[in-house]
């Protein structure tokens, strides 16, 4: 039987209270949101916090809404809510693509976007989605708020910019009218973590790629952006030639490792193929009006 080691437990009823508890009790205190990454780690003693601060009562942090030219997503928004958001479905179907293949429907009832991003697992799918879209995270502490670009958020595997007395409150995604987006993942069986996954968005103007983003999962750092592939796409006519060039770049610059999910070379090939597929699908969605 797997049970976590003993710890103290408290509910927070506001962000301020959560931050005060984190500050008062020090770095061995951790927030728990859905608990679907943290509790399994605690069962295995890969994490051993002395105290948990439960933030599930902060239901005012569960939202997806449009704010001017941005989408704001509260940190406590669960996978299931992201999957069923009409706003995300119309502006960024990449979210639905990803949510369909993150874990399973029951896990998706609990896991949150804040927990997913803060876990910093290299194979985590939403990290790749938010990095693809050039989103950013609002991080609160007792002394104020700072905004960190998703692409600068990860210091390494399981390591993020969030300090011990800080909390992510919101994820912000810029809206790009007419953009198409898509996520392509290959896993060993439904509900499993990615062997490799690729997210992308495109905007096209007069047949030429104006703006784009590509983020990778499971082949390097969490949410690894494929910068060279993005550079290869910008200013080029949308089409197979451009996608092939980007696929080659993404494969060349990712950093897969051989593990139980497959050999590094296979993952590299997979990144190339998934990049092509994601770009085709995103481009088709541009044509269809971004939806």
């Amino acid at each position, binding site marked *: 039987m797997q049970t976590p080691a003993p710890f103290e437990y408290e509910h927070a009823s506001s962000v301020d209270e959560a931050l005060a508890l984190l500050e008062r009790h020090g770095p061995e205190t951790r927030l*728990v949101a859905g608990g679907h990454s943290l509790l399994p780690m605690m069962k295995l003693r890969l994490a051993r916090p002395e105290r948990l601060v439960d933030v599930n009562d902060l239901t005012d942090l569960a939202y997806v809404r449009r704010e001017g030219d941005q989408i704001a997503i509260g940190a406590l928004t669960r996978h299931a809510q992201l999957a069923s958001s009409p706003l995300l479905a119309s502006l960024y179907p990449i979210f639905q693509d990803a949510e369909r293949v993150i874990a*399973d429907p029951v896990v998706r009832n609990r896991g949150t976007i804040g927990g997913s991003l803060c876990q910093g697992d290299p194979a985590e799918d939403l990290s790749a989605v938010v990095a693809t879209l050039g989103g950013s995270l609002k991080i609160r502490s007792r002394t104020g708020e700072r905004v960190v670009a998703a692409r600068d958020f990860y210091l390494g595997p399981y390591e993020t910019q969030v300090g011990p007395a800080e909390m992510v409150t919101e994820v912000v995604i810029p809206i790009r009218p007419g953009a198409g987006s898509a996520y392509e993942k290959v896993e060993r069986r439904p509900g499993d973590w990615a062997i490799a996954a690729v997210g992308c968005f495109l905007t096209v103007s007069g047949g030429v790629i104006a703006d784009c983003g590509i983020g990778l999962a499971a082949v390097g750092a969490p949410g690894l952006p494929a910068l060279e592939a993005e550079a290869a796409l910008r200013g080029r006519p949308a089409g197979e030639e451009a996608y092939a060039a980007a696929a080659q770049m993404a494969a060349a610059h990712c950093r897969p490792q051989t593990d139980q999910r497959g050999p590094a070379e296979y993952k590299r090939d997979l990144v190339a193929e998934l990049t092509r597929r994601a770009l085709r699908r995103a481009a088709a969605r541009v044509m269809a009006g971004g939806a």
Partner: protein
Amino acid sequence: MRVAMNVNGEEVGAEVEPRMLLVHFLRDELGLTGTHWGCDTSNCGTCVVWMDGEPVKSCTVLAAMASGRDVRTVEGLEQGTQLDPVQEGFMQEHGLQCGFCTPGMMMTARWLLDHNPDPSEAEIREAISGQICRCTGYENIVRAIRWAAAHQPAKEVAS
């Protein structure tokens, strides 16, 4: 610490360690052994119960996290002496062999039918995709849920 919650319509409470998982609270503290506990790793789904009306894997929820919430377990499916159509369906269509995965399957099935009264086979398979039947009796589980969909009791109309 003290936890208190509503389980199958009844207020219950106990003094527990914060690290106690909801599945063990239900089984060991309340004696509700209908909820099974299998993989311990959030993968098999035999521990699925409802929390505030949504299926969750109770091996990955602390009892403390369920405190103050509504929990529904497989024991809460039957109404009086009347089996839920989902339970009836598992009997009619031979939806279980050893029965180990059954409580979790039935809780997810009930939730699915409440939200989608006439699900396709693909929708049923998607709904139970986080749950494993070691006896691999998926065909009959799908049939059992289809049976339940076809035999829903007349819903009381909320006025």
